């Protein structure tokens, strides 16, 4: 009982569906908890018993390598029983609806369900139908909260703060849930956020979320502390948004000459997987002095451990 009341004070939500639903206290609590797991993940014995006896189901309707393995590892390191269901060859293919799948799994009494789905709002629908907590691992183009949290943690570890930093988010904003979650989180934490994309890849009225919008990458990158690149999501493109990848690279790919407009100590981030030579120059992606892309992956496990622990309790 003590633990439950503890949670009630520290986190306002039952589910982690999006950054939009979180308060600044929620975010700080998750980030602080995440810090505690970073060391653990670097040590020899990575196993805790925090979630022993708990069941975690990973429900991935879209292919995913890093997010799925990250959630799986996070659960296992906390001692949970983790089951990952590959939905591409399951009942959904036989015509079962998301709600029926949810009811079936719910009958098995899981403690937490991690869901990734190609439709925006799928996690919201799931959360209304199950008794356990639901963690969103990406829904359509709406939100990817743990990615934004791990990005924030990476920035904090490098720059010691977020407030007052100038952060550019570049690329295919229209199709990006990572961009949306990061916009909510980084503006909430006091960063000055620039969004840069060709108009065809810029969501309507995005400026109403309190960001500055640019179509010229060099202007957007001027004096930035952080350059966050996004993957060009060719699989979500349904009509001609761009003339070609090479033109995109010319104007929106991160190259050393464009990066020169940012601060000298600017760091480069990317949620992965990268399209080298399309949105990022391969040398920059591998530049250990500037790129923190591997660190993002590493901290991702810590953030997901914190989220599992907090929302499972």
């Amino acid at each position, binding site marked *: 009982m003590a633990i439950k009341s503890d949670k009630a004070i520290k986190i306002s939500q039952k589910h982690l569906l999006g950054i939009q639903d979180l308060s600044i206290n929620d975010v700080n609590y998750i980030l602080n908890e995440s810090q505690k797991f970073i060391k653990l993940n670097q040590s020899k014995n990575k196993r805790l018993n925090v979630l022993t006896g708990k069941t975690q189901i990973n429900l991935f309707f879209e292919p995913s390598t890093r997010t799925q393995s990250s959630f799986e590892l996070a659960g296992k390191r906390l001692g949970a029983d983790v089951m990952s269901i590959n939905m591409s060859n399951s009942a959904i293919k036989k015509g079962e*609806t998301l709600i029926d799948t949810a009811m079936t799994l719910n009958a098995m009494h899981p403690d937490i369900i991690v869901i990734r789905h190609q*439709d925006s*709002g799928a996690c919201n*629908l799931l959360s209304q139908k199950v008794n356990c907590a639901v963690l969103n691992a990406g829904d359509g183009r709406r939100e990817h909260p743990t990615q934004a949290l791990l990005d924030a943690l990476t920035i904090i570890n490098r720059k010691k703060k977020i407030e007052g930093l100038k952060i550019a988010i570049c690329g295919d904003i229209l199709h990006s849930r990572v961009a*949306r979650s990061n916009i909510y989180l980084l503006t909430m934490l006091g960063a000055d956020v620039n969004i840069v994309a060709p108009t065809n890849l810029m*969501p*309507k009225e*995005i400026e*109403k*979320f309190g960001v500055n919008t640019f179509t010229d990458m060099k202007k957007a990158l001027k004096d930035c502390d952080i350059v966050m690149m996004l993957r060009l999501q060719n699989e979500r493109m349904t009509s001609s948004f761009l003339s070609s990848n090479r033109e995109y690279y010319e104007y929106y790919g991160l190259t050393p000459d464009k990066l020169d407009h940012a601060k000298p100590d600017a760091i480069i981030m990317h949620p992965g997987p990268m399209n080298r030579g399309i949105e990022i120059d391969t040398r920059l992606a591998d530049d250990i002095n500037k790129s923190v892309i591997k660190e993002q992956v590493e901290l991702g496990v810590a953030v997901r451990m914190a989220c599992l622990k907090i929302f499972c309790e």
Partner: protein
Amino acid sequence: MKKQYFINANIIDPHNSINENGGLIVDEYGKIEAIGKKVNINNLPTREKPIDLKDKYIFPGLVDMRVFVGEPGYEYKENFRTLSNAALSGGVTSVVTMPNTDPVIDNVSIVDFLKRRGRDKSKINIFPCASLTQNIEGTNMTEFGLLAKKGIIGFTDGVKTIQNTSLMSKIMNSAKDLECLIMQHAEDYHLSKNGMINSGIIATKLGLSGIPDIAERIIIERDLALLEKNKCRYHISQLSSAKSVDVIKERKNDVKFTSGVSINNLSLNENDIGDFKTFLKLSPPLRKEEDRQALVQGLKDKTIDVIVSDHKPEDEESKRLTFSQAATGASGIETLLSLSLELYHNGSIKLETIIQALTSNPSKILRINKGNLSIGNDADFCIVDLNKPWIVKKENLISKSKNTSIEDKKLQGKVTNTFVKGKELFKI
């Protein structure tokens, strides 16, 4: 049938410019014998027992120009019997049915079936539409002339739009030759591709593809340009944006056409979608509050002619899905009048204008002798308690499908009795 006498009612019949306190006499054949202030207790024989309506309202039975019925093919969503009962409870006595059935209403033989079913199972007047193109594929025209002879009231592809401009031009010419009514759902598919809700901040926030208002405007402007030469009876089924209202206002003087608006777009805006409410996934989509206000203004200044329910019954299974997978449309025929009355109660529009948009205007466009209380006509009318408060509850809906866009909404004004051909077919 016995003669029926109603007195002390507020009668509104826009067709006959009646807006007064008085009575109504229905004769033995279910026709209107007398109406107006001269029908009162002093002018009635003492042997008759008139029904005192105590200042309730009498409106002509409503004419709803955009209704989807599940017959044939989707009887589990709505059939003629359930549709009639739902309509009657909302004071609707005549409906124009959309051809988006399975099979599509696109040939003479299916019209025979439809008319038989309508006659045997329906208690209200059914005016069926046929599709503009065969199987609603947007390529080959249907037989307007033969279908019209069979009793088809108008032609529309319902939820679909004619994209091919050359075909649209030919459709208009045929319609002109044969004096047929064409109704267009205005949506450019390239612009609305994958769209589910209004393009803008809500779509961005929910991560859904948007339908920009220009998708509607482009088709309206195209059709009105064609209409300059090919003058046919042309009706825009539903407007949804301020921009569209501007366009039709500007063009009304030089081209002859009519337009309608769904009660959903008059009463709700995109913010009502909230946390992915699939019952509010509509076509055209709900737009911004400014758009809603422009539509209300358009109705008020009579730029827009008609209010429709856009009644589209969908079963639970079609709506209990993610937003992108869920079916489009809301059930609305039962709440059409009560929700319209909200615009009167909140002072937006005069009562007479609302009733006109629900009765005489659609009848005039359709060229039918309905939606009025003229002497000698069928006594199709409803009695309304204008102030009665009630709450829309899914479980109380009569329609076979419960996908109302206004679940739990508090409304003021309720139909208490509905008559068709003098017969009381609904009573609270």
